């Protein structure tokens, strides 16, 4: 008798699977043909490790969609059509982001996709978009690896992190030449074990190789994303006697790592966490004194509003909608990605995916990003190359721009005044 339960269960299982399949293939009303509304899908990390930043991107997307709705819709081929954002929560998890992208395309039948946040999730999700030939515009994926795969439907508004490493080292080299930093300077280079971190490492280490002995990498270690205890790593940094502390971390890791950095009594002549440093959350958690003089390279800053008209317009609109809060680069990039997609749809004059893809590839528009124009160059795999603005936190809680000089609002300070001899 031992077999009966199993086999019964099996036939039951097949029955259920069959029923599920039949239920799933019930004829659906064909939506795409008659639909007036333009449906744009996206996932964001609204829960999980990146929940806070996910919320910021959502604000950016919502501002962009609200503006279109307020204007009565998106004017496509002479007709105003409403746009709707279909947003799911990918829980900061790559596998979920992939499943949900599949659902957005094949079940929700969205016309286009906007990106999620954090490089790893974007890298995972873009595969689904490319498979299904759906244009995917993102403001949250920054590793050059995403754009080196020869994908045709992926467009990124974030400059690659490798360039951030180079830009940061450029500033450091200038300070060194001015005699403010030792030569040769020993670098402790820490990077998160992702494409993002590897990109940063490439940028810094290639600069070091080209510097002709002005720099030397004393520590070169990766660390676990969303790690808890960095004491082993920091112990190594401490004993290496480095001059410069250059790390690449996401926001939660930046906060954890920097707290333990301070606990360990460390101080370096230049301290940077790559793209992190000036976030309000870090100031709230660690105190503005603790994060003072940290140098960060970001894709956008509200301080650009004085120099770039589109940045001014965005900052004002954002403040009006969100009770006077100053936007950070997250909201700006979310807004900009949506804006670029809208423009391409208008230029294409239809919601045909191929037509919109072609327009995105040829896009050149005024932008709130540094440089003032946005395009997705094909030779860079569709990744914008607007560059970075370097900021430095000050003890009063502000973070002025120190580079590029054209938009700088203050001079950079090196060596770090916190390290009293």
């Amino acid at each position: 008798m031992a077999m009966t339960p199993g086999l019964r269960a099996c036939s039951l299982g097949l029955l259920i699977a069959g029923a599920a399949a039949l239920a799933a293939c019930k004829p659906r009303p064909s939506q795409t043909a008659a639909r007036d509304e333009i449906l744009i899908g996206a996932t964001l990390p609204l829960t999980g490790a990146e929940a806070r930043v996910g919320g910021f991107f959502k604000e950016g997307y919502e501002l962009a969609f609200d503006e279109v709705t307020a204007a009565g819709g998106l004017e496509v081929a002479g007709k105003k059509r409403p746009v709707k954002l279909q947003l799911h929560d990918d829980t900061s998890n790559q596998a979920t982001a992939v499943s949900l992208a599949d659902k957005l395309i094949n079940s929700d039948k969205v016309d286009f996709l906007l990106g999620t946040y954090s490089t790893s999730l974007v890298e995972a999700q873009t595969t689904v978009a490319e498979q299904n030939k759906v244009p995917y515009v993102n403001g949250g994926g920054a590793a050059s690896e995403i754009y080196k795969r020869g994908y045709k439907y992926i467009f990124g508004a974030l400059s690659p992190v490798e360039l951030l490493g180079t830009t940061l080292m450029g500033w450091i080299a200038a300070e060194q030449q001015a005699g403010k930093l030792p030569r040769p300077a020993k670098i402790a280079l820490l990077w998160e074990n992702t494409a993002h971190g590897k990109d940063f490492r490439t940028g810094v280490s290639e600069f070091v190789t080209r510097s002709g002995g002005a720099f030397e990498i004393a520590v070169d270690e990766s660390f676990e994303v969303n790690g808890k205890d960095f004491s082993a790593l920091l112990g190594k940094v401490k004993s290496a006697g480095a001059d410069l502390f250059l790390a690449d971390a996401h926001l939660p890791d930046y906060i954890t790592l920097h707290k333990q950095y301070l606990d360990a009594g460390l101080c370096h002549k230049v301290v940077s966490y790559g793209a992190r440093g000036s976030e309000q959350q870090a100031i709230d958690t660690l105190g503005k004194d603790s994060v003072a003089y940290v140098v960060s390279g970001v894709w956008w800053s509200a301080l650009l509003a004085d120099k770039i008209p589109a940045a001014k317009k965005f900052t004002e609109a954002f403040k009006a909608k969100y009770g006077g809060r100053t936007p950070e680069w997250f909201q700006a990039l979310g807004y900009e990605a949506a804006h670029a997609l809208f423009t391409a749809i208008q230029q294409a004059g239809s919601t045909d995916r191929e037509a919109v893809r072609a327009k995105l590839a040829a896009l050149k528009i005024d932008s709130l990003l540094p440089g003032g124009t946005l395009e997705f160059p094909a030779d860079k795999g569709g990744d914008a190359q607007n560059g970075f603005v370097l900021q430095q936190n000050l003890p009063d809680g502000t973070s002025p721009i120190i580079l590029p000089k054209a938009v700088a609002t203050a001079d950079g300070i090196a060596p770090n005044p916190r390290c009293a001899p």
Partner: protein
Amino acid sequence: MTAPSPLIPRRLVAGFVAGFAILAVLPVGVELSPYAHNLLTSSFIMIAGVLAWNWMGGFVGQVSFGHASLFGVGAFVSARLMLSVHLPVPACWLAGAVCAGVFALAAHPMLRLRGPYFSIATIGFGEISRQVLTYWERFTGGASGLSLPIDAVLKYQLYWWALGFAVLVALASVAIRRSSLGLKLLAIKADADAAADVGISTTFYQDVIFMLSGTVVGLSGGLWASYFGFIEPSDMLGFDRSIAFVLMAVVGGIGTSLGPVLGAVVFVLVRTYLLASYPELYLGLYGLLLICIILFEPLGLTGLGLRVVAAVQRARRRRSREVV
């Protein structure tokens, strides 16, 4: 316990064949939405994986909380071969499966542990594999993982590969259970020492089963990599995935030869539905489901189904008696 009857009721064989046939021609006969097509494909892959888990966890009674490491090794080896060596895809899957099977042999020293000790050791085994593979970013891409080449045709065909694979593993499950090997495993499950006393080499048979289980789980990992197009270590080798294998088996009916099939189907469908519709309640509902199953029906859905069948038969018998 009576010896398994050599005859399987014809109705069930017919049901099995019919179910297989329906599923095999379904995408040809009806126009499946790509979404349903994908869901079914992933269900088949999970069915194969959980059935193989059940060989160890159910038949031998050694509950492994580390099968994700085998799943992950199979996936990463085959993905790496596809990316770097460009072998034909099925060859990559097989190579991954073999590697996972060999990797499972590394667990050999753990096999003399029993009960919670074995389970805890497998947790350690799984965590070590996950951390080492995540660190080894040249092989696995680190925390960012690997993207596989895009192949729409393969993804469509994967439905039949996965279905065939799942059916083969299901047949193997029944075969193992009915063979003398199955009886030996039952003896080990009931009392390892007593089994050894009557001349059953517990470590040898456990090694064999663990290796077979590892190979099949590794193969399902390879298929999963092709299906998903993207793999990363913390998802493929994480504790959550190990738990998922246990969960599917328990929901379906741990230790029954084919009950886990149900568990896998329910797991994939419920997970997909909950994640899309109630992401904020997904975990809690899952937890409640788990608690209810453990408390009220240790044999899972299979046990529930059996109860219903028994109740129906009892009612029928009573009625026939009344008629007489």
